[in-house]
């Protein structure tokens, strides 16, 4: 099958690989019809995530058609069209029992610091991802959701990560009516976090980034204020001036470890990897939020350590909340929002690229070329009608 193939930092290509097989009775094999490139895939692409092995196939945002199921799969059947949350989870461990599906303890042998994620290095479990024609989906009765007929495929694929993560970012901010919410990052997750902040009753939403076309997009899409941090001398000071010297009630980090905006952080966090990524946005969040405010972190950082002003967080009495999104528990409510027209996820999609051109797709997304916001990869067999296996079975 054709699959994205990681060859080293900044190097990926589409290659032929063996098709995945059922390895556990709870597995399914899904033929991918759409897969996104996520902003967090760029951390892998840039070689920043430990234990990212050559040959790995990325992709934790994908939908597809069930092609084969293991002997213990009873809820899904061949031919079902499913969206697959990015979390690989069992549904029965302590954490899954508490709806923390992003923190499952039964699917990742190689790390306790992170749950399992499709196509996100061996630190996240060593599962190949969905930027391929086929993908192995463990615990198929638990994780995947059959896509309702009235939900567009482009909306469905954004329900696998970007939208739930943005929504959870706002949710973890514990937004109260009238709150001022600052979202750092105008990528897909930041865009959805801004949109979600309004749903939760924010009084003011401000999005910060340096990419003008993204700021322009989010200003219109999420009806928010925007700030280009390149035009600001000091981010925390600017936010305080914007908020009558109080600071924001809630700050959201939707950027993570490759933040621009502070040369020293970039040198120590990205170029020399002396810390687990540039903690620029963590600084901005902690120093821009008001005393007693909330900081919500969904931007991804590495597993080692970061230099952050934790003393300020203490002295300001902040609440810091963070997690990988627990996608599955958000889906029913988010589907209601889509049906009600409150959110139009597919509107953020700017690029559709054949999987064969994955190298260019990554470069465009990584370098923010061609006004790229969200890229969808289309595998060659995405639109194949399932006639071959059916005719063999007959």
């Amino acid at each position, binding site marked *: 099958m054709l699959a994205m193939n990681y060859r080293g930092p900044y190097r990926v290509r589409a290659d032929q690989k063996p098709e995945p097989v059922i390895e556990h009775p709870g597995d399914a094999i899904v033929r991918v019809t759409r897969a996104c490139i996520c902003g967090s895939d760029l951390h892998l692409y840039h070689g920043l995530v430990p234990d990212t092995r050559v040959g790995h196939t990325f992709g934790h945002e994908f939908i597809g058609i069930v092609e084969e199921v293991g002997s213990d799969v009873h809820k899904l059947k061949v031919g079902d069209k499913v969206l697959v949350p990015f979390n690989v989870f069992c549904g029965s461990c302590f954490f899954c029992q508490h709806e923390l599906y992003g923190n499952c303890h039964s699917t990742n042998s190689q790390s306790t610091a992170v749950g399992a994620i499709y196509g996100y290095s061996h630190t996240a479990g060593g599962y190949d991802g969905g930027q391929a024609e086929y993908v192995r989906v463990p615990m198929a009765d638990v994780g995947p959701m059959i896509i309702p007929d009235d939900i567009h495929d482009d909306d469905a694929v954004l329900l696998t990560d970007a939208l739930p993560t943005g929504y959870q970012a706002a*949710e973890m901010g514990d937004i109260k009516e009238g709150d001022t919410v600052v979202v750092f990052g105008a990528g897909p997750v930041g865009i959805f976090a801004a949109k979600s902040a309004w749903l939760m009753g924010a009084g003011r939403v401000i999005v910060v980034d340096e990419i003008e076309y993204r700021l322009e997009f989010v200003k219109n899409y999420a009806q928010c204020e925007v700030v280009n941090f390149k035009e600001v001398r000091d981010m925390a000071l600017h936010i305080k001036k914007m908020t009558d010297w109080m600071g924001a009630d809630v700050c959201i980090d939707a950027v993570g470890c490759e933040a621009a905006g502070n040369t020293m952080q970039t040198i120590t966090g990205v170029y020399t990897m002396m810390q687990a990524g540039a903690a620029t946005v963590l600084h901005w969040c902690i120093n821009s939020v008001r005393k007693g405010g909330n900081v919500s972190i969904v931007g991804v950082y590495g597993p080692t350590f970061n230099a952050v002003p934790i003393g300020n967080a203490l002295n300001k009495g902040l609440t810091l909340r963070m997690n990988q999104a627990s996608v599955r528990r958000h889906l029913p409510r988010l589907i209601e929002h889509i049906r009600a027209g409150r959110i139009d996820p597919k509107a953020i999609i700017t690029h559709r690229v054949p999987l064969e051109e994955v190298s260019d797709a990554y470069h465009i997304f990584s370098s923010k070329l061609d006004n790229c916001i969200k890229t969808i990869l289309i595998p060659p067999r995405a639109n194949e009608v399932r006639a071959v296996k059916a005719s063999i079975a007959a």
Partner: protein
Amino acid sequence: MQTRNDIVSANDQHDGDHAPGEHDNDGHVGHVHGAIAPRRPTRAQLAHIQGWGADLDRKDRPGVPMERTPPRFINVPDGDPAPQEEHVEVLVSTERPGRTPLFGTVQPPSGLSGMIRRQAFKLTENDVRHWLLLLVADRVNMVEGIGEDLASGKIPNVLAEMGIKAEFQHNKAGLAKKVALGVAVVGTAVYLMKRRR
């Protein structure tokens, strides 16, 4: 007791020159407030926001409270998953009692990078050397990957893998700068080497 709406109306009265959505320029010196308090726009001022307040009530937020049991919205399996059979080497964190019931099997450790990874997995995740060794292994693995390509008769097209076609299509100026920079670096290196001789 002062409610949020009281704060809003108080702020509206004495700070009416700031409409919601407006913000100061960086050079703005601000106001001196007797009692600084967050400004809160009224619901009427927010009425134009699509979907505003749909999840204002916390019971509509699926992640509140953060931990809920029993789990909703999934088919809860009967008991733990059966253990997956191990056909390839899977490294296991020392911070676990053993393999998890389910695990990924792709790209098992191999070669020099595999040896380094095995060493890394003798250390705990709490030990930073664990992660640093894995990063070293990743870089070694990258070189091994080029070797594998060559061994299988394939010369990796590194520029294509890095998306040079897209760079040419969408960022010709950037590409020209990179080429110029590359030529300058190589030219300087050649010049310095020649001068030493």
